């Protein structure tokens, strides 16, 4: 194992497999442009060999760059709730990722937050993509099988500069007894593009998150895609919000949710506060076994010339679709799995193939449980 991957070797085989389920590599950095690993509060490594990209521990970054004060707790307020207050009251942990003006990563950069102890893990991350920069991120969050009772508190502040593009793909592999409270806000400048993909296909006791995108620059674009499976005992209160506060800003919030007995609250909110803005919320859900899916799409327009829409549907797999595939020779179970796979197929334009592969792998792994 190379020096750069230090930290993964300290983890057991089983823990490494859990991390790999989130799409991360634990053996080598091949096909990655950088890596960050934090286990509980301990930062094992933060490194990248990409030109114009820098990743460092938050504490180091705050010492090194005084200008970081302009970003630190500026998108997410310190006193927002008890989660942010908890993090603000402690020694800074987490990473700062800076993509300098015009820089591009060919390969995604991977960050891993791993929870090994029976306690609260907290983290504060700041991602800055300067003008024209392009950054792809795979953020894997996982917990050890040994962790019986733990929680993850996280703050993420993302700044997408003028003409910059940030793709964040987050795959969660928590445990049945873990509670997770991410707090995230993304600020997008002129013509900046922010694509966020969230995949949660394994059980978690509770996830509560409502990431927000503030589209402050003209022509800014935000797209949130979420693929969520709630197994029995899981309570997933998730959503996304877009504040369209500049001309030509557009946002799309797309969710595919499935319950096999757990609870999903699928929230969505788009606020159009200036002219010539567009937003759409789409939530489609399947109830495979008795559970709860509560879709709460909200669209709020305040001026003429803002176009907002939403569609939400909760249902079951159509019998005629199953029979159609059975007439082609697929068994009922095969037909059902094939239809679910299609249901979850939310292809995202502009997503690097390697990231789509990770999403597909997470779905494939979960599909066995349908």
């Amino acid at each position, binding site marked *: 194992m190379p020096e750069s991957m230090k930290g993964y070797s300290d983890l057991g085989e089983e823990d490494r497999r859990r991390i790999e389920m989130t799409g991360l590599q634990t053996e080598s950095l091949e096909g990655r442009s950088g890596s960050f690993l934090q286990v509980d509060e301990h930062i094992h490594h933060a490194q990248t060999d990409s030109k114009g990209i820098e990743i460092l521990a938050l504490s180091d970054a705050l010492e090194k760059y005084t200008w970081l004060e302009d970003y630190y707790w500026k998108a997410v307020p310190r006193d927002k709730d008890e989660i942010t207050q908890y993090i603000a009251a402690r020694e800074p942990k987490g990473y700062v990722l800076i993509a300098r003006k015009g820089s591009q990563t060919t390969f995604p950069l991977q960050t891993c937050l791993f929870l090994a102890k029976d306690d609260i893990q907290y983290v504060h991350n700041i991602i800055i993509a300067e003008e024209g920069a392009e950054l792809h991120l795979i953020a894997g969050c996982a917990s050890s099988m040994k962790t019986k009772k733990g929680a993850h508190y996280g703050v993420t502040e993302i700044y997408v500069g003028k003409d910059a593009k940030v793709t964040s793909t987050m795959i969660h592999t928590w445990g049945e007894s873990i509670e997770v409270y991410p707090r995230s806000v993304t600020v997008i400048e002129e013509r900046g593009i922010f694509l966020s993909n969230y995949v949660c296909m394994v059980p978690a006791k509770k996830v509560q998150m409502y990431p927000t995108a503030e589209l402050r620059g003209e022509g800014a674009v935000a797209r949130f895609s979420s693929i969520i499976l709630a197994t029995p005992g899981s309570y997933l209160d998730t959503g996304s919000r877009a504040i369209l506060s500049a001309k030509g800003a557009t946002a799309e919030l797309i969710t595919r949710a499935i319950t096999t007995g757990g609870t999903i609250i699928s929230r969505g909110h788009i606020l159009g506060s200036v002219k010539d803005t567009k937003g759409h919320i789409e939530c489609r859900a399947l109830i495979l076994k008795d559970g709860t899916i509560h879709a709460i799409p909200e669209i709020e327009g305040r001026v003429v010339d803002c176009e907002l829409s939403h569609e939400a549907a909760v249902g079951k797999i159509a*019998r005629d679709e199953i*029979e159609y595939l059975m*007439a*082609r020779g697929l068994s009922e179970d095969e037909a059902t799995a*094939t239809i679910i796979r*299609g249901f979850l*197929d939310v292809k995202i334009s502009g997503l690097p193939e390697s990231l789509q592969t990770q999403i597909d792998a997470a779905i494939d792994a979960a599909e066995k449980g349908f």
Partner: protein
Amino acid sequence: MLIIEDLHVEVEGREVLHDINLTINEGETHVLMGPNGSGKTTLLRAIMGFGSSRITEGSLIYKDHDITHVPIHERARLGIGLLFQRPPTVSGLKLGKLLAVTSGGDSERIDEYARHMNMDTFLERDINKGFSGGEIKRSEVLQLMIQKPDLVMLDEPESGVDLENMSLVGNAIAALVEKDQHIINRKKSGLIITHTGYILDYIDADFGHVMCDGTFKCHGNPREILKMVQSKGYKECIACQRV
């Protein structure tokens, strides 16, 4: 190949087919005609095994197997295939993906047949989503070409197909029921619902049946039946007392 005996079928609790008897031998192609709502589609769906077409009496014997209560996919695996008149859209499922599953991953054959049916640009599209009437039929024929059924059931294969593509679809269907083979060598059988009879320009069907009000009114030469229907309409059949 298929023996239908005293078949009674219910749809939503109402009997739609009464006392149907029909034998289709190996190598024979049968044509089913009749006014809208007479039960033709219900018969095909009952043979395929759809839950909504519930068999209450009688039996279906296919290649010496009693398939009256066998699940759909087992009938398909035994060699029964159906071209749907209006198949459902399956969001997210690519046509190419389904063909890969049903062909056992034979991508060469898929590409060849897809090109033949002018469907090669549809392989990466969600199945039936936004397809025109003719595209649906070409996609259905393509699926059957891959599936290679022994009993080919077609529910109005020509509806929605433009003139340019009619010969493509017609000839492909003729090949499915081995009309390109000498009579003695034909192993495949067909059961085809047609309203217009256009398909008869490509397939010399062996037998014709007229269905009215859920039962057969008459059996005979398909061309003769078509000619009569074209000139006098089904009202003649309904008035006709001979059953």
